[in-house]
């Protein structure tokens, strides 16, 4: 590493020395190059130290759990491989994915309308309503969902009559996740649509496309990247939800509930292993998803 750095410095010096510079200046440049490695901007150093406190907490926390867990791999393996944990992780991810699919289906048109509407009081009001789950404490959000979807709730009552029960059931989990994750998806999607110039849609429309065709063939393909990152954000939010979900659906256990349950019953040992498993799986999945973004979206289309 050190050698490499030296070579680069040398190369730079050589390149510079071939330029027709007066002798004095050349010497200055060379000296500046030598100093560059040692020069410290104290402002940036200070910022780095302060920033390190934030990063440090995350790193320490993960290092901590990793060290303790790797000390007893047999126990970790036993917990991670238990059908209860695997089932719960799959359930959480699946419920989150269902919530996101519903969001894509219903949130995308909403985001498009918001992106294209001229500023008005109604638009402002709708935007604020979209943001409500963002500012509410999660328990409040959970309570709101519970009150609306419980067996005697405004929506829960008619839906339970046609056989769709929300209390302590998977639909309850999904609807709670949907509620708390919706602003993340809608806002990201709206931003994406706003970045597609109306002009491009107009070109498509002058060529004979209807409103929906122009949306489907021009606007949506150009916003895929935003759709994708919005969906990932919303999914992450959905699978991390705890307080919002337990109000309406304590059962079936999503991972957050499972960890909390085992923390209060079996104690720290088991819940820590479950948590560590979840960390590993989540990291893996999110890393893969992030990697995939690079293959998405035709950004250079933007005029």
């Amino acid at each position, binding site marked *: 590493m050190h050698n490499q750095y030296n070579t680069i410095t040398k190369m730079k010096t050589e390149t510079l020395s071939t330029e027709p510079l007066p002798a004095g200046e050349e010497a200055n440049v060379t000296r500046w190059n030598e100093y560059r490695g040692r020069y410290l901007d104290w402002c940036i150093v200070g910022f780095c130290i302060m920033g390190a406190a934030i990063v440090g907490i995350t790193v320490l926390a993960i290092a901590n759990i990793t060290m303790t867990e790797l000390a007893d791999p047999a126990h970790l393996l036993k917990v991670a491989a238990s059908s209860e944990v695997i089932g719960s992780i799959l359930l959480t991810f699946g419920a989150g994915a269902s919530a996101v699919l519903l969001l894509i289906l219903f949130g995308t048109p909403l985001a498009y309308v918001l992106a294209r509407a*001229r500023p008005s009081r109604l638009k402002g009001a709708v935007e604020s309503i979209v943001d409500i789950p963002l500012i509410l404490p999660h328990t409040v959000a959970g309570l709101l969902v519970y009150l609306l979807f419980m067996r005697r709730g405004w929506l829960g009552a008619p839906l339970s009559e046609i056989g769709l029960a929300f209390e302590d059931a998977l639909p309850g989990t999904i609807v709670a996740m949907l509620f708390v994750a919706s602003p993340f998806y809608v806002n990201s999607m709206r931003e994406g649509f706003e970045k597609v110039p109306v*002009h491009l849609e*107009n070109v498509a429309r*002058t*060529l*004979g496309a209807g409103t929906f*065709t122009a949306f489907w063939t021009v606007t949506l393909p150009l916003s895929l990247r935003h759709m994708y990152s919005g969906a990932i954000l919303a999914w992450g939010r959905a699978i991390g939800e705890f307080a919002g979900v337990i109000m309406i659906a304590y059962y079936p256990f999503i991972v957050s509930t499972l960890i909390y349950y085992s923390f209060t019953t079996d104690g720290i040992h088991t819940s820590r292993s479950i948590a560590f498993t979840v960390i590993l799986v989540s990291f893996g999945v999110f890393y893969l998803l992030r990697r995939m973004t690079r293959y998405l979206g035709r950004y250079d*289309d933007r*005029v």
Partner: protein
Amino acid sequence: MAIIEAHGIRKSYGSLLALHDVDLTVGEGEILALIGPSGSGKSTLLRVLDLIEPADEGRLSVFGIEVASERGSWLDLRRRMGMLFQRPIVFNASVYDNVAMGLRYRRASGEEIDRRVKEALEAVGLSRYIKSRATDLSGGEQQRVALSRVLVTDPEILFLDEPTANLDPTSTATIEEIVMRLNREAGMTVLISTHDLAQGQRLAHRVGVMIEGTIAQTGASSDVFRAPKDRRIARFVGVQNIIPGRVVSRTEGLTTVEAGGRQILSATPPPADEVEIVIRGEDVSLHRREPMHEEAENLFPAMVTRIEPAAPFVNVTISCGCDLVALVTARRGDALGLREGMGVWISLQAKAVHLIPLTGH
């Protein structure tokens, strides 16, 4: 036959009034140029006429169909028209796919698309780029791709929204040539908006001047250039001399107007008592001494007060009671040996002196 008829079109965006009281009739097979300064509403009007945006008020009929009562058929009507925009907009796909867009929207068959795309690219001279990425082409080529993308759908009306504003002279000439040919051979109706007066004059059968959201004057381009209806139009079409004056008398088809103590003869009937005299700089001729055989009605001595080069011309300000600007070629300026403070004679035909009523500006 009128293919577009618009009456009292009004369009605003929030508090911004983009169009008001627009009346326009376009005949089938006509080329009409909308000229006007930036922000005068040319693009908005084209979007309204192309049914991309609805007008707030007014009546509009296209192809003889009253559009307000036929909201359901807008897409069908729009498919009989085409529009080319100022900025060359191509989608990040092959040239072929770009040109095929309109046909795909119309659900044409694969063979038909193939045949017509090739024809359209042939027509704009871009056949060799058929497989290239459209975004890799130069600005002028992209605009030609955009043009063939419009033409492939065989529009009956073609809207061109400042199509050559960003292009070099060669690409501009190519595009103008294609448009002229289509108008001549296929009888395509063309509406072109431009702030380039010369382009309007070159292409159009008729010119409409847009000022501040409305069409202030329509007519043959020579009418608009020589006989603008009011001061704003005169300013926009590049009239150098707008001088307030008073009508003194009217005899034998000539109006005598007094301005700055000098009487000037005009062939325009007096529109009011208080008028403004509109004279194009190139209509003012300069002579070193009193010309012997001069047919111009106005002939008087004057003094050169300022000389400004405006290659290949020279703007010469002369004082003869009132200040006049004459536009002479640089060569003629040299031949006359013009210098400031020099005495000259100017001659001016009565026909070149246009009168408009004096307004409050």
